[in-house]
């Protein structure tokens, strides 16, 4: 009998899962349907470059339907909810789809309305985000008019997609204002709820040093409770304030709203509780989760989604064959951090090991935790790999989904504690 796999979301994770599955199975073995609410696949890492005029919003968007291999059914509709009891998905267009296996790949959404004042007066005038195509484009216009003053970059709370992107924004802003010859007129401040520049100790120290070198002030443990756009103030729950002339805010993130409307599927933030090694949901054995939608303790990043793909597809296969699951996903994350002036830094880590210095993927590879032009080229090349390698479901030659240790220098650090 033909089995049906339904994939919710046709972004990074949904597309690569569909394409990988299609390669493993013929049409007579399984049917694959992917549901997404729109036909605009955004290369989200490109959003970082839009405000600085280094990319254009329309150039980082492609039609979703064209990213799928032949033999994948793409359904354009919003998802209303999932019914785990009847193994079916209700769409907002009124139709219902049954499944044998469900793959949740609906990512994370921005919920700026959950922060008092954020979408009030001043939103998209003095207060922006670059986490959406519209926001990034509007911020670009505002930056080009900005002649000096206090520019504040604020992460409201974790989790966020690509937790290094706000830091990269600071580094690029430093470069951008230098290029324009007005760096001395601009006061840059990075305001974070974390107790350092980043979550992992060694990278955090290194990144804090880079912020200082680039004259970006660092304000830590700041939990934004309110944004006063008119008055130009971020106000923390503990009463502290940071003033701004222009604010770049990374709003709170949640899982997709339909998750909350699906009994038994999500947690209080609408992310889906998921086994961090097998990627099977806790909700039901025939429901698997990939990418930002999962509540696993890994970064919400395209690289993680890519590395998850291999284990996820293998586990869908094993589930359908009645075999026990492969528990080998290790939380592997790999991020290029753009640092301005045509350089970038590379970090590589997993659930257990924090980012370490050394080289990637082995001792002759790219420098880790160090700025280099090679890493900047790597970051630029990632866009082409995204469309032509990652989405079609190819592996990167020489790079396995498990984190490599060959080129790393653990002597410089201890394995991070998991507390």
């Amino acid at each position, binding site marked *: 009998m033909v089995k049906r796999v339904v994939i919710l979301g046709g972004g990074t994770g949904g597309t690569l899962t569909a394409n990988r599955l299609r390669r493993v199975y013929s049409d007579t073995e399984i049917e694959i349907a992917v549901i997404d609410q729109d036909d605009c696949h955004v290369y989200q890492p490109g959003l970082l470059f839009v405000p600085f005029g280094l990319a254009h919003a329309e150039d980082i968007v492609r039609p979703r339907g064209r990213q799928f291999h032949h033999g994948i059914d793409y359904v354009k509709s919003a998802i209303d909810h999932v019914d785990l009891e009847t193994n079916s998905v209700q769409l907002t267009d009124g139709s219902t789809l049954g499944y044998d296996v469900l793959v949740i790949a609906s990512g994370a959404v921005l919920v700026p309305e959950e922060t008092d004042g954020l979408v009030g007066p001043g939103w998209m005038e003095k207060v922006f985000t670059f986490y959406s195509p519209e926001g990034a484009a509007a911020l670009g216009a505002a930056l080009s008019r900005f002649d000096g003053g206090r520019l504040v970059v604020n992460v409201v709370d*974790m989790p966020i997609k690509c937790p290094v992107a706000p830091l990269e924004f600071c580094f690029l802003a430093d470069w951008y204002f230098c290029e324009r010859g007005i760096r001395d007129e601009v006061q840059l401040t990075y305001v974070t709820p974390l107790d350092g520049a980043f979550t992992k100790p060694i990278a955090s120290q290194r990144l804090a040093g880079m912020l200082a070198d680039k004259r970006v002030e660092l304000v830590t443990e700041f939990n934004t409770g309110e944004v006063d756009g008119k008055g130009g103030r971020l106000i923390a729950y*503990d009463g502290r304030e940071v003033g701004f002339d222009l604010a770049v805010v990374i709003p709170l993130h949640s899982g997709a709203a339909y998750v909350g409307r699906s009994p038994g599927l999500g*947690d*209080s933030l609408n992310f889906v509780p998921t086994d961090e090694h097998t990627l099977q949901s806790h909700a039901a054995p025939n429901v698997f989760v990939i990418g930002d939608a999962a509540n696993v303790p*890994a970064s919400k990043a395209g690289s993680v989604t890519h590395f998850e793909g291999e284990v996820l597809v293998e586990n869908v296969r094993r589930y359908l064959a009645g075999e026990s699951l492969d528990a080998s996903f290790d939380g592997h994350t790999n991020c290029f951090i753009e640092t301005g002036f045509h350089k970038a830094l590379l970090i590589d880590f997993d659930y257990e090991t924090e980012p370490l210095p050394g080289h990637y993927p082995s001792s002759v590879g790219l420098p880790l935790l160090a700025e280099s032009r090679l890493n900047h080229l790597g970051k630029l090349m990632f866009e082409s790999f995204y469309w032509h390698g990652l989405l079609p479901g190819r592996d990167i030659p020489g790079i396995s989904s498990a984190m490599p240790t060959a080129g790393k220098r653990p002597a410089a650090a201890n394995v991070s*504690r998991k507390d």
Partner: protein
Amino acid sequence: MSTSTIANIDVELNNEGFFVDPDQWTVDMVSELALREGIEELTDAHWQVIRFMRSEYLAKGTGPTVRVLGKTSGVSIKELYQLFPKGPAKVAAKIAGIPKPRGCI
């Protein structure tokens, strides 16, 4: 890691002051742990949050973050900061004898 004596019992705390082994915690330690965090008088609302942290940890293996606490504990985030000015999730986790909430990756 260091050993501390709380309510006459030796417990292991990590260098940030969180319990290494949540099983070493007993409810008798709460007022002394709160005092260490500068909270002299525990109100019903404090207790509600501390109990909630503990039960969430036992059920899910990690304590809730401030945002999740605000959504699920029945106490608003503003009020949580009044109760635990130095950071609700962290301070309540220390008093509830559980590891640091794993929200931030």
